[in-house]
């Protein structure tokens, strides 16, 4: 095996290894992104990590000791209750569009992250 062939083989190996890492990474990091209505129509995603986009329903925010622990989001047709005790982004408020990421626990979405949306971009609240 000449030096250049060994080089090509070595490089191919590196690329392949990183491709494997990328593939496994994307499978574990991919999150479905739906509205509550779409989510209600997808029983196959009942146990998947999902990201729901909706408006925080007026009067739905429940607080304890000044901290928010639950609220409801909706898209006009369907609403879903969200349980969350982590940090909230600065622009979180009733009536505002938010993204909620988490997994269904019974009928309540146990959220791991809450983000607010802006017209052209979104920014995440810190991971817990």
């Amino acid at each position, binding site marked *: 095996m000449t*030096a*250049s062939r*060994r*080089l090509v083989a*070595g*490089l191919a190996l*590196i*690329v392949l*290894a*990183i491709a494997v*890492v*990328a593939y*496994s*990474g*994307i499978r*574990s*990091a*991919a*999150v*479905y*992104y*739906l509205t509550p209505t779409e989510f209600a129509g997808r029983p196959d995603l009942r146990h998947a990590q999902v*990201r729901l986009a909706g408006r925080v329903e007026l009067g739905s925010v429940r607080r304890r*000791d*000044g*901290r*928010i622990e639950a609220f409801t989001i909706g898209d006009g047709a369907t609403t879903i209750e969200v349980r969350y005790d*982590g*940090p*909230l*982004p*600065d*622009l979180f*408020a009733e009536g505002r569009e938010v993204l909620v990421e988490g997994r269904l626990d019974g009928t309540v979405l146990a959220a791991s992250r809450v983000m607010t949306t*802006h017209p*052209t*971009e*979104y*920014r*995440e*609240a*810190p*991971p817990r």
Partner: protein
Amino acid sequence: MSTLGSFALLAALVVAAYGLVAGLAGLRRRDDALLESSRRALVAWAAFAALASAALLAALLTRDFSIRYVAETSSRDLPLLYTVTAFWGGHAGSLLLWALVLGLYGVAAATRLRPSADAPLVFLVLLVTAAFFTLTLVLGSNPFASERIPPPDGRGLNPLLRNPWMAVHPPALYLGFVGTTVPFALVVASLVRGPGSRWLEATRAWMRPVWCFLTLGLLFGAKWSYVVLGWGGYWAWDPVENAALMPWLTSTAFLHSAQVHGYDGSLGGWTRALVLLTFLLAILGTFLTRSGVLSSVHAFAHSTVGVYFLAFLTVASLASCALLLRSRREARPAADSALLSREVAFLVNNVLFVVAVAAVLFGTLFPLLAEAVTGDRINVGPPYFNQVMVPIVLLLLLLMAVGPLLSWRRTDPLVLSRRLALPAAAGVLSALAAAAAGLRRPLPLLLVALGVLAAATTVGEFVRGAGLRRNRGQAWPGALLQLVGRGRTRYGGYLVHLGVLIMLAGIAASSAFTTRVQVTVAPGERFRLGRYEVRYDGVRAVGGPGLLITEARLTAADGRTRVALRPRHLLHTVSDQITAEVAIRSSWRDDLYVVLIGLAADRRATFRALLTPGMAWLWTGALVALAGGVLAATPARRRVPARQAMPGAAVVPEGGG
């Protein structure tokens, strides 16, 4: 103003079209007068782009809300700095900024590019790009479109953009993004003309400052994210951030592979491909952030600008591929290099950079592909990017450590091991020390060992070079200064390496050892944050133009020092939005970072507080890297060739190494 602006844009379009026709005809007929006319058309186009920009700026400053763009991005209460910022605070304005910056580069190219057979082609490529952006501005996203019912006070700039870092971030990034056009044009010209083009030196000389601007853009963006967004981080693998990172990665790869091509002429096609890719990724970045495609494929359908960009991107990519394929017989592999040689190290480095770009691109575009194929909207989060980038960074660190010690063509393993002994010992000892201090996980330990190893070999290069000069009787400081001054690209490059290493130390420390708390406290109550005890003293209201500010007062004490922290809540009265102003106390050891996130009627306040080590290292490292880049980009003074100046003196190879 809207008439003047629209006129300037139309005139720019006409001039660019004329320049294209004149240039093509001049090339065909070998008519120098026509070619000169095409060059002047490029300058005239730049003048009209500047005129349109001046018109928009004037409209913003005079609060001319009859122009929709002005109405939507500014308001009467906006301070001067942010009134100027509003120029690039919206869609159409940022496209006009693109054109303005392209005009600057166009004038620079038209005046500084030496007359050569390549030059008219370079101007043609710049004119095509100019024509495209002007067309997009006129038809797709016109900043001078009028507002039917002008709002009396304007709708105001997005509060998140009202920050000095955001004011400087887009111009810096665009100087980088747009700057890639000139290297692209140089390479396209060389590919069209075939053998005989002296493109490499010119392309490197243009790419170095562009690299600095891209770095600056990334730095400002990270700083904005850290200071303004209040989540305590600086990088979220957000698609918008990835868009800026990808051309930075390919331009960095180019600056490395160009050294191999300059040394023995190999990797010619690859090196050129990296330049073409850098430009295409800069356009892709603009497309991704400007088309609405990132939120959803469906949103893209509503954006006309996106379609223009996609068309331009497709044509530019196809043309690039065709040109590269046509010239592939020029590509020569490094035939007789041993595996243990500097060029192989550069090649592996290049492959890693390109793999990194592919991985970032894949993660960024995967949601779009998935939605197009399955209809499911999917999001790819930071875990993917972290998982992919960690092995790449570790391998790059290894190369950074070993690469400078390798000779071209062939390195004697014995010589290498002798050169590597001291740095390797330093690396192992540091890892052992870190383990003794309580660091147990293997990946961070490996990072410490490789990082110190790389730092030691890099510092060793400075010591070795200066040592040679010292042997000739110079003192250390003078020897070091002269060494760096004479070999700017080489030692500038090593300075970049040192900066990157300092940054990596900061990134590793901040991502591994951050302490966070979120607490709700009444005035007078205390909470713990790492070694600090923080007392909440109370709140007070502060007025401001168009703002209601609530300021919380806290005192943090760690036994020796007391620190006052003043996080604030800003209610923007025009847009009825609330933003937070973070209180940050930075030191070499760590950053105290406090955000006021909620305030109850009984003055109980909720705070998010973080103690993050290494943040100062991160910013310092970035600045050191930037200084290295600027040093490498500074052209050396024209000197009398060494041989003539000192007959018989040994010529020490300098620069380019």
